[in-house]
């Protein structure tokens, strides 16, 4: 079956299989930031935006993006690099495996929540698992990022 969609702002058209998952299609399109980690919708590694909302591309049928907008980390390079610098400075990059999904969800959160408190942040990002850090350094990076970007955070 053929679908038409926007990938990182560019119109695309592809022939797909009915059961093909979105992350498989995105990796075929060269979006290697998108990885399938747990295959059980639990880890958040495969996070992309569908119609500007973060979703798990391991559980979205590619057929469902027909006529829709998909955004991956490759389409948000400048913002992603900016936040990743804070992660590096605070030591929350570590092995780096979970970073793409985490960054995608952080950037979605920064758009969706105004002046979030620490509990709201933890709740929003609860679907992104990291086995290295214990999340303390993530929170330091987030506090600095949100504060210095003027996005605000209730402390």
């Amino acid at each position, binding site marked *: 079956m053929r679908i038409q969609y926007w990938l990182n702002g560019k119109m695309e058209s592809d022939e797909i299989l009915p059961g093909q998952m979105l992350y498989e299609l995105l990796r075929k399109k060269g979006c290697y930031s998108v990885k399938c980690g747990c295959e059980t919708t639990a880890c958040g590694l495969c996070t992309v935006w569908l119609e500007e909302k*973060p979703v798990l591309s391991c559980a*979205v049928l590619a057929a*469902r993006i027909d006529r829709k907008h998909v955004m991956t980390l490759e389409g948000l390079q400048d913002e992603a690099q900016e936040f990743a610098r804070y992660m590096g400075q605070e030591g929350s990059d570590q092995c780096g495996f979970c970073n793409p999904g985490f960054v995608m969800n952080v950037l979605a959160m920064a758009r969706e929540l105004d002046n979030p408190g620490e509990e709201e942040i933890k709740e929003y990002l*609860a*679907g992104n698992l990291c086995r290295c850090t214990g999340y303390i350094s993530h929170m330091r990076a987030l506090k600095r990022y949100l504060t210095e970007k003027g996005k605000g955070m209730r402390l």
Partner: protein
Amino acid sequence: MNIAHYVKAKSLEEAWQLNQKRSAVILGGGCWLRMSPRRRVATAIDLMDLGLDEIRETEEAFYIGAMVPLRQLEISESLETYTQGAMKEALRHIVGTQFRNMATVGGSIWGRFGFSDVLTLFLALDAEADLYKGGRIPLSLFAEKTADTDILKGIYLPKKKRRTAYASLRLNATDFPVLACAVSRTADSVSCSVGARPMRAQVRCLPVGTGMTGEEAERAAREVADSLSFEDNMRASRIYRHDMAMVLCRRLLLQTAGEGD
């Protein structure tokens, strides 16, 4: 996923016709299809173009389309006000934001999952399931039926003056609940729904009005817990669940005691 055909239904009638074959599947959020990768689906039927992804509010009721994502329920200000925050409390622990952007009300209710926070809360709120062929039936009746080939269009939530509260017990954040409990109180009765027993949620109605002492709440909570069956699984024992049901029910009964607003 092993799907032979994918059809974006143009009408509910088309979806229903396609769904009469055993190997057909109606897609909700699709989150659980992923869990059975070896399952062969002849026709996956998508309802996403049928306008079932809206929450409509009238003077008398809320109507929640089957394709409304859980996140949309969670952030709905009118539902938060109507349920005094119970809607958000029931949903915010479910996996993660991304998951709740995908999982739908219809998928959660139709699945009649034992662990469902969504079913637990809606049962206490006296909701009705709106079926394409079967019409509107009480959710408590729907929950007891086995899945057939009808289609869930949405959930009808009648507005009443009530106070509602929700609590769940989890071993880990984002995990399935060990026990889920919702209490909703009107002027003359209170509905106590207990889910994750670990079987699907069941509701009990008690003929009590506003106001309740600690002793009365203790008695009512014991009555509810004793009337339900519980089972063991890897998360908790039957006895633990029974005792925790009493604790959560008592807390919520006291929390909802007082004048409704």
